[in-house]
């Protein structure tokens, strides 16, 4: 998790500009606990969001999809490298991106391009507990909360935005709210109604000695 956070921070730093403002938000559960993996997106009220995104990777390691939540801008290609010594069968039935990479090992030949905004649930057909979510957004300003429930979007061009929250286990979608991003950094906190994370049963890894 820590590595992820570092990786995200690095990403944000790279994409920042000098006159832009910072946006910071923290997500909690209804009971006030810090909520990780919540995505926060600032959508400009007018105009399209320009720019492209580099290819993102969702790896399969130790029979898990890593990371659990990935937020990408529309049109982003995602690689699904299989780092396990056995095959996986990756699929998504989500309307935003329905695809299937049948049993494969190593890195698939082509990355999958997520060209429609929306939520994509990813699973492995042969490992039921493996799951990951990709939120495809039509904006360049997005982040996801860390384990402390904090997310930061740096260098946001000042203007009017629709602030959206999303969480893979959210019970209902929060209404978007308007925010103004100026020079001053904006900090806010949002409570989200999420279902508890039910860890699906995962059999232990094969052992050499039977």
């Amino acid at each position, binding site marked *: 998790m820590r590595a992820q956070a570092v990786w995200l921070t690095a990403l944000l730093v790279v994409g920042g500009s000098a006159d832009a403002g910072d946006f910071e938000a923290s997500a909690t559960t209804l009971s006030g606990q810090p909520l990780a993996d919540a995505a926060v997106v600032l959508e400009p009220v007018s105009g399209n969001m320009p720019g492209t995104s580099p290819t993102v990777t969702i790896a399969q390691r130790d029979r898990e999809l890593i990371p659990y939540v990935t937020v990408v801008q529309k049109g982003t290609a995602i690689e699904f490298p299989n780092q396990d010594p056995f095959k996986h069968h990756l*699929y998504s*039935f989500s309307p935003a991106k329905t695809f299937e990479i049948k049993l494969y090992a190593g890195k698939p030949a082509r990355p999958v391009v997520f060209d429609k905004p929306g939520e994509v649930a990813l*699973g492995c057909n042969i490992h039921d*507990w493996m*799951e990951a979510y990709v939120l495809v957004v039509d904006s360049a300003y997005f982040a996801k909360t860390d384990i402390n429930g904090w997310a930061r979007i740096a260098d946001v061009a000042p203007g009017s935005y629709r602030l959206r929250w999303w969480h893979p286990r959210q019970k209902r979608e929060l209404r978007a709210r308007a925010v103004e991003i100026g020079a001053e950094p904006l900090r806010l906190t949002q409570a989200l109604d999420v279902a508890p994370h039910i860890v699906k049963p995962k059999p232990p890894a094969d052992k050499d000695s039977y």
Partner: protein
Amino acid sequence: MLFRSLQHRIVIVFVGLLVLVMALMLALVTRSNSRIVAAEIERELAAGTQVFSLLMEQNRRQLETAATVLSADFAFREAIATRDRPTIRSVIRNHGLRIGAQVMMVIHPDGTLIADTQNRNDPNHTVPFQDLLAAAESAGKSTGYKQMKDGRLYQIVVVPILAPKRIAWAAMGFLVDDHWARDLSGMTGLAVSVIRRDATGVAVLSSSLEEPKRAALPTAIGALATDRSGVLDIGDEHYQTVYVPLGKEISVALQRSVEQAKAPFQTLQTALWTIVLAGVVVFFFGSVMLARRIVRPVNELAGAARRIEAGDYAEPVPRLTSDEIGQLATSFDLMRERVANREQKILKLAYEDSLTGLPNRTRFIEEFSSLPETSRSAVMVMNLDRFAPINSALGHPVGDRLLTEIGSRLRSFQSATTLVGRFWGDEFVFLLREADREAASRFAESLIVALRKPFTLDGHRLDVDATLGVALYPDDGRDAVTLHRRAELAMYAAKRQRSGIAFAAEAGAEPLPEQLSLIWEMREARSRGEFLLYYQPKLDLASGQITEVEALIRWQHPQRGLVSPAAFIPFAEKTGFIRELTPWVIETVVAQLAQWRKAGIELVPAVNLSALDLMNPKLIVHIRRLIGQYGLAAKALCVEITESALMEDPELALAHLNELAALGLKLAIDDYGVGRASLAYLQTLPVHELKIDGSFIRAVAETPKNAAIVRSTIVLCHALGLSVVGEGAETADDLAWLSTNGCDVAQGYSIAKPMPAEKLPDWLARFGKRAWKQA
């Protein structure tokens, strides 16, 4: 009445006791069986319920697992994810077949229907089992029982369809039908019925029970308001029932048939009943046989007792077993023999003359009455001549022995047609069956011949003659008593005539009816005390004193007044009634004599004896007894006998006269002169006095012939040592003549008429003052 019989009582007691014991045993067995059955049912129900719950749980898990596996099927999920209803419907139909679900639904996470296999339901409507969805929401999956629109009950399993996030619910419905119930019934050993109980009542949704029990189930369960364990009556069977709730208003009734549980015990009980009934039957017959064995000898004894009661002693009491009853029978038989012996003796005494062993009068009368009415027969009476002198001279023991000898000689005449009997004294009687006059004559002849051979007793040779009288049936009488009397009368007639034999027909007719009634009247008079004694004084001419009186009988008849002796005495003599009368006369006289003595009156009373009296040895016995009783001195009593009485049987008369003289009685010959007795004969008798008949005395003074006879008689008598009494001295002249001519005593109206005893003292007193010499 039924239970009076010993046999019945034995049987009833034995069988009753056995039935009681058996009933107790059966009751005990039945009770313990019921308990065992009840416990068994409880146990089976408990075990069955446990198995049922376990099966249900297993079933649920199996279904859930299967559903989960199904819902995780990639192709399935892929199809669902298409959101294309026809595709979804076809895939759930297909997968429903795989898992064996009758109903499959795909439900949106918001609870609305996406598609179902029934193709009937409107998509997008909210499914009716939101509770299951809610449960699945929290637990990942859920199971419940729901009655669907088609009225059928389904077990519904709800599992999520994950991709990998839950994209929908899959609901699979498994029909809970009779097949399901029968499967579970087979595994639990209980009847399984799913019921729905709501406000409208109880409905059976499925059941392992067959019709018509199934139809009866709702009513039976509905009888109780709640699902409470208990026994339900279903049809003709009873079911112990427990309930397992399945869901809202729905529960499963698990039932165990009491009858089926009882069945093995029922078999046992049936066997037991059979044994008991067979036992009772066997016991019944056994005790009947036993009772018979006990009662039969008793009945035989009772039969023997009845025979003995009826007088049949011949058949011996049956020899029975050697037990108590056998002993009783032996004693009883002994008793029978003894009683028979005694009765024989009694019969002998009753029907036999003890001296000769010949039949007696009673037997004779019975024999006679047994004769057929149409038969002719003869009754013959035989009286020995000169038996009294033999008796007197040789003593009664010799007389008895003679009678015994005669009896044994006569016994040879006893035959099928002839009865030989002895009535009394020397009187033998013969009953000749089918005999007419000639036969009777011939029989009489043979009798006389038989008696002609002399008897020898103690060296004395005794010649016995007999006189016979015969009466014939039915000419001379129709009953035994009459015939005997007529034969007796004939016999007396024969004696008088010395003819040896006489027939009743010739010996004088049967007394006239009025005479017969006279006999009866005399008997009555005797018992009513209508006979009186009058006394006529006799005057001793020498002293002028009244020294003697003659007792004369009178009959004070209630209607006819005083009846003259002439009117009834001859008849009494003829019929023999005199024999009853004379003893009374003597007794009365002797009693009167004693009374006079007490009063200081010295008189010698005289009593008249008839011919029959003179023949009667019993009278002598009677007189002897009276003399002893009253202590009479010699010559205190006088007995007057007529000449004719002496002539009936001179020998017997002599014998008896001797006896009377020996007793100290004064003996007088009455009515002398009208009979044929000669003085020479009279002189041989032990008499003391001669009473000259009144016909000679009346007017003797005026009748020279009579006077001559009387005078010479007086002289002769005096010469022979006899005193003389002149009877019928009616006038003073007669009296004077008698006195003058040396007559010792006079009697007649000139002195006094006969008078009652109570008048005599006064008369005597008056007579004493008056000098008769005045005449």
